[in-house]
């Protein structure tokens, strides 16, 4: 009993002394911090993904508070964070919520491989040594460089050999877009509606497209002719949809013989 009592008292006294000392030194050696930096930092999501181009959220907050960086660079925080920071600093934000979309449908069964690639397990490396592992040289290589850079675990290569984006987790930071050596990932505003062509095959020879991928754009231009709004035009061998004119009628989706077009509606791609 005595031992217990002594220990408790000793601990309490020691705790009190250390507490007083800590309190004293906290006041004595306090580092003044800019309240504006703290406020900006509080708005930022704290993912430290680096997509803004700064070392982390702290570094970006400092840069924004010192007006050396625009308030809308945080893609993870998206529109919400951009608007809040802009309001705080009396600036305007042009941030939009974005989403990574894979513009290639060359899955394992649709786009055959041109040979066995057995080197380092990386898309970039495979591209250097093979020029593309699939017969279509524009196709997604499916070796998962995007998966490895995603800070949010939002993109995974699945059984069909293509990476799939988890729309719930994707923050549109653009890391995968930057990493992809084939440039088959693009950022699309989450608010975007309308048709999107999912193919980058620029091979001018129609028969070559079909032999390399069952779902590649064969440059038949049926979509251009079929679109009632005249929203589709061909640019360097690929269809481009004018967002302002597209009404999401879905005619191009039905008409395309190789099913290149898909409709986007509020964060999701509709087959």
């Amino acid at each position, binding site marked *: 009993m005595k031992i217990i009592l002594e220990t408790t008292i000793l601990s309490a006294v020691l705790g009190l002394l250390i507490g007083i000392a800590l309190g004293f030194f906290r006041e004595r050696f306090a580092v003044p911090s800019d309240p504006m930096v703290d406020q900006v930092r509080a708005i930022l999501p704290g993912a430290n993904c680096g997509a803004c181009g700064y070392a982390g959220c702290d570094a970006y907050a400092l840069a924004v508070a010192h007006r050396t960086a625009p308030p809308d660079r945080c893609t993870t925080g998206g529109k919400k964070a951009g608007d809040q920071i802009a309001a705080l600093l009396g600036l305007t934000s042009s941030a939009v919520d974005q989403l990574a979309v894979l513009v290639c449908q060359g899955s394992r069964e649709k786009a055959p491989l041109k040979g066995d690639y057995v080197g380092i397990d990386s898309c970039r*490396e495979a591209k*250097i*040594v093979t020029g593309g592992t699939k017969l279509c040289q524009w196709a997604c290589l499916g070796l998962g460089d995007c998966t490895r850079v995603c800070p949010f675990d939002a993109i995974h290569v699945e059984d069909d050999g293509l990476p799939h984006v988890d729309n719930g987790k994707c923050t549109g930071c653009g890391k995968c877009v930057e990493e992809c050596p084939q440039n088959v990932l693009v950022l699309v505003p989450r608010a975007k509606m309308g048709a999107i062509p999912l193919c980058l095959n620029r091979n001018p020879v129609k028969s070559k497209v079909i032999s390399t991928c069952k779902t590649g754009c064969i440059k038949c231009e049926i979509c251009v002719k079929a679109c009632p709004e005249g929203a589709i035009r061909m640019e360097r061998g690929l269809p481009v949809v004018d967002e302002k004119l597209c009404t999401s009628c879905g005619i191009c989706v039905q008409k395309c013989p190789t099913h290149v077009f898909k409709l986007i509606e509020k964060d999701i791609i509709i087959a």
Partner: protein
Amino acid sequence: MNLKTFRGGIHPPERKEATCDLPIEHVPTPASVVIHLTQAVGAQNQPLVKIGDRVLKGQKIGDVDACPAAAVHASITGIVKKIEPAPQSNLRDGMAIFIEADGTDETAYMPPLDPFACSREEAIKRLRDAGIVGMGGASFPTDVKLAPPADKPVDTIIANGAECEPYLTIDYRTMLETPAVVVEGLAMAAHILGADKAIIAIESNKADALPGIQREIPAHAHGVPMEAVLVATKYPQGGEKMLIKAITNREVPSHGLPFDVGVIVQNVGTLVAISEAFIQGKPLIERGFTVSGEACRTPKNLYAPIGTVIGSLIPDVIQVSDDLRKVIFGGPMMGVAVPTLQTPIAKGTSGVLFFNTAEATQYEERQCIRCGRCADACPVRLMPMLMNAAIAIKDLDRADALGLIDCFECGACSYSCPARIPLTQRFRLGKDLLRNQRAKEARHGK
């Protein structure tokens, strides 16, 4: 005998027995050829012919007004059938001109030109018009190489007859069968360059070619001081920086080129092409290459028009076994594995190797055991194990400081690694990442 060489290097099995005693065999004119518009380092060529045109053997069919670049020529007489992308031996599907033979053998060569009588500009222009590129594999335009900047005087030219890649024997056969042409070509190149001295370097395992070359020097050297020397048999003795070190004991500086130390190296095949371009007016439209490998039942040294699709030679000229697993254009160390037999012979194709399953075995990568064999093997004295570790953690600045850019991808480190780490492949990846990072830094004005 203490032969000249460089520090480092490896001794892979030579495997030259299969073809070293076989004379170069001329392939019958193929029914069609696929000629890629761009086959050299440099600018993209534009087609000069249209579908349906009749083209003559030796006619220029692709060129561009840029430097460096090398023109391409029709290698057979016939009709242009199509112009579209086709599989290329550099694995990029480049634009190619498909020519179907019409059975005639008309030629459209340029008039002969005496390089010793004409001006230097004329001689350089002839090399440019003949589309001559380095035929050892790198495909660098020869006209650019023989016209170094004025502030870099070149005193020595070396004919590269090292042929250090296993299996390949085409340079050896060329030196053995046509030594006079090799010597003549070297004399022309030396004259154009204004070099004081010309040296023919031959690896010691090909010493048989030496007497023939030495016999021809008095008659064909056109007064250029010339000698033939033996160098040690070691890979990569045929790398130009290694050859310069071995013969002149000069060391090409980091990030530098051979002309920085006053030397130019030319492959013996290129010298033959130079000689033909002047004496016959013949552009680079045909070349010799070695066909070998365990899965090749008929190893040979062949001479065929550029653009000959390798698959079209099977089975009439080349027979392959059923166990064919991998086809390599070039040598086994630095060559490129092609995914299809529809790949045509290019200006830089020195060999086509057919490997069976055993030869094409891939091993699992293990942990580095810090044995340092890669550093011993590296001919440019880099430290591959440290560069590999730096690239693994994406510390590209450190990899750059370790000399990543000086790696010329000879593969000696990968070959010697007991842990089977694909070092060379990783350095190619590292160089690509480094280039991207530098480009990004330049964009952001760092």
